[in-house]
């Protein structure tokens, strides 16, 4: 999956934690909340990068039985440290089963067996459609090249639901995608059904500022939660379209010490349970 967005590390979230002396970073807030969003799911098709960190964190905290599925062909990987790539040896060594790449896409993903697909993105629009292909840099400049589709189009089509995690900025959250790589909710309600997409599509976009969810009526992403210390205006400002805000915006629970410890251990390569 695409972990090579153009977002700078920290991104717009780096000025977030200015309310109080909190001992977490915006990225940690994002990852902890992304991990929490996996509650109730048994099987997760994991994109590399931010999704992988979140899915692995979920397995270390509230979801020890979460089945991690990587497009490299592993079913039920249980890595002890965060893999750098989707093909690190530990993903295979700790898996319940290793299958070929065609099989993982045809028999497991396309067949609609997987509860949740977890994706990153370079550009997202208000209907949670994704661009990871090219960036329009204006009439006199060549297109900017992104990595491409990877597994995303079919992950978003076939999983029962989709979670997305990416850093919040006007560059990432755009009025109009330069290219539609992967369909979230298309141009609104009914589009997924019309296109014959199996699952319900994106149900949450978790960022370093808060959480957006599609409006059940219009399928447009709405700001439903902000992270502790973040202001609603800040999120609106970091969004490239006129962001709708829920009537009652919630505030996510601060990370627990256990969540932070597990996340930091994962990133540093240790196993907090060992």
């Amino acid at each position: 999956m695409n972990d090579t967005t153009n977002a700078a590390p920290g991104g717009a979230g780096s000025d977030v934690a200015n309310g109080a002396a909190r001992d977490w970073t915006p990225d940690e807030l994002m990852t902890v909340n992304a991990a929490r969003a996996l509650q109730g799911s048994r099987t997760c098709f994991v994109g590399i990068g931010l999704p992988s960190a979140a899915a692995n964190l979920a397995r270390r905290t509230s979801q020890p039985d979460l089945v991690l599925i990587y497009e490299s062909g592993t079913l039920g990987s249980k890595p002890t440290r965060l893999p750098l790539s989707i093909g690190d040896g530990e993903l295979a060594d700790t898996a319940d089963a290793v299958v070929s790449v065609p099989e993982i896409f045809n028999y497991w993903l396309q067949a609609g067996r997987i509860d949740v697909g977890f994706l990153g993105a370079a550009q997202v629009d208000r209907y949670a459609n994704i661009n990871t292909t090219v960036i329009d840099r204006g009439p006199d400049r060549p297109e900017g090249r992104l990595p491409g589709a990877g597994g995303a189009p079919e992950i978003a089509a076939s999983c029962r639901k989709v979670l997305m995690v990416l850093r919040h900025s006007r560059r990432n959250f755009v009025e109009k995608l330069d290219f539609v790589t992967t369909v979230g909710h298309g141009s609104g309600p009914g589009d997924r059904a019309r296109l014959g997409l199996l699952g319900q599509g994106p149900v949450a976009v978790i960022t370093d500022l808060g959480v957006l969810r599609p409006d059940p009526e219009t399928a447009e992403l709405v700001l439903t939660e902000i992270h502790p210390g973040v202001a609603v205006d800040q999120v609106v400002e970091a969004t490239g379209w006129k962001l709708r805000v829920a009537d009652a915006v919630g505030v996510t629970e601060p990370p627990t010490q256990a969540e932070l410890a597990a996340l930091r251990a994962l990133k540093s390569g240790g196993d907090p349970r060992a």
Partner: protein
Amino acid sequence: MAEIRSLRDAVAELIHDGDTVAMEGFTHLIPFAAAHEIIRQGITDLTLVRMTPDVIYDQLIGMGVARRLVFSWGGNPGVGSLHRFRDAVENGWPRPLELDEHSHAGMANRYVAGASRLPFAVLRGYRGSDLPERSSTIATVTCPFTGEELAAVAAVNPDVTVIHAQRADREGNVQLWGLVGVQKEAALAADRVLVTVEEIVEKLEPTPDAVVLPSWAVTAVAHVPDGAHPSYAAGYSVRDNEFYQAWDPISRDREAFLAWMREHVLEAS
């Protein structure tokens, strides 16, 4: 029956200017040594096929070996962009690079069709995506039983597929295990198959999760220990994640890239 050759001879005999070449290995077992031999021999005008054209294709593209790339995700996994790939696509340096771009599911099925010697494969894919607009190898087909419209992708049948494997025996039977990716399909889709191996053994012992390619499905085997570095061979090496991170600054700069290739590839053997 596969012949056991030196890497130099095998590359010279199997790969020619203008060929369509697939070098597969999904993060694991990437045939870097063979790619370096292609560069050293000055083979050029290749159509390169690979689901994940990561650092190995960044090197080939940056050296001007490729005129066309068929792929589904081009990044440095876990690190960032492929700067040589981007420079070729965005700026035509060192030469322009045509693209045929798919999703992973589409590419995997193109190899499946190729291995099955069918002209196309069917999948539930690309729906609503702009990808089909830019590719002549994505179309639709209608189910004759249900009337449902599905995506069709054209088979890939490379002239040559190159893979790296853990072992071969002296007859040229090949065994690989761990993440086996799409290597069996890529090999069986090709006219000619070159396999570099960590080890040549008297007898292949059955191993969990192993794929065996019989000698009569392989053209040549070359003994190239560590031939997948900085990728890895499960049971023999681990992924050199530091190299992948170091590649980012090397590859950002054209001169730094060329200097690195000179030192580590062109003047090596």
